[in-house]
């Protein structure tokens, strides 16, 4: 699923994309100098990493619900495990809970090696059921 350029400012800014692999979606961003927190280390800003992790979880939940129901982030808790470089950053999501009104997602992010996580997050979302 790709989004046309200009349609989603946040996705354009992050260089966001998703790829389906063995029935699992891998989300990624392509960081640039815009996303750096510490220019000398050339490390990504922690808030940018958090933005990506939360947005990836949101997109995964949208995909799974497939209902267009409004999803609102309740909170996010991010752990920074390694310095994140200006190289491609990947994330996969495990939905820990999917209820009628609440979903909890575990997010794992890595760069070169999927076995070496650089950040992880737990994101909670409330789901509106319309009626």
């Amino acid at each position, binding site marked *: 699923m790709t989004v046309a350029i200009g349609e989603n400012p*946040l996705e354009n800014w992050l260089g966001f994309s998703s790829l389906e692999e063995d029935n699992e979606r891998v989300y990624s961003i392509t960081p640039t100098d815009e996303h750096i927190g510490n220019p000398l280390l050339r490390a990504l800003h922690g808030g940018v990493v958090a933005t990506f992790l939360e947005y990836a979880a949101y997109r995964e939940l949208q995909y799974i619900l497939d209902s267009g129901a409004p999803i609102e982030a309740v909170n996010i808790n991010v752990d920074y495990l390694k310095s994140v470089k200006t190289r491609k950053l990947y994330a996969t999501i495990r939905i820990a809970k999917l209820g009628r009104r609440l979903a909890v997602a575990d997010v794992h992010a890595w760069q070169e090696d999927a076995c070496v996580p650089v950040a992880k997050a737990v994101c909670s979302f409330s789901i509106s059921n319309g009626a």
Partner: protein
Amino acid sequence: MTVEKAIPAAHFEWLEGAQEFFSNAHPLFSRLDMKPVQIGDGDVCVTATLNGLFEYHANSQRAHGGALTILLDTVFGFAIFAQLRNFQSIATINLRTDYISPASTGLKVKCSAQCYARRDNIAYVRGEIREAENDLLVATATGAFMVGSRGPDFKTLQPGAGS
């Protein structure tokens, strides 16, 4: 090394650095138009405007919560610098953000943060974002940071300081 009454001078230098920290030199900070409005002892307040690039549905004018987390993470770091009175290298260990009310793009907000505790090289910070105009609570957050993490001092990022 001379022992002199360097405290006022050092303090002045830190305040100058603080202004430059939020100058247009940093692409991400200038994107959010961050401006310090209060700099106390581990207690700071910064105004910002949520840039349109954080819109995540076409023409929705809804800013993604990430804009708030970027602001909080930055101002939290700044609160630690304000307590240390220098720009030592720091690293975020973890950060929790609670989204209280939805924010629209273009919204002017104020982010306040307090470095309320230190234990050895760990600093604990809490803070919140409110709408600048009506004080409505937008988000609250807490974070833990490693002070003196490996890596260059933020001071060396200031124009004219070092190479």
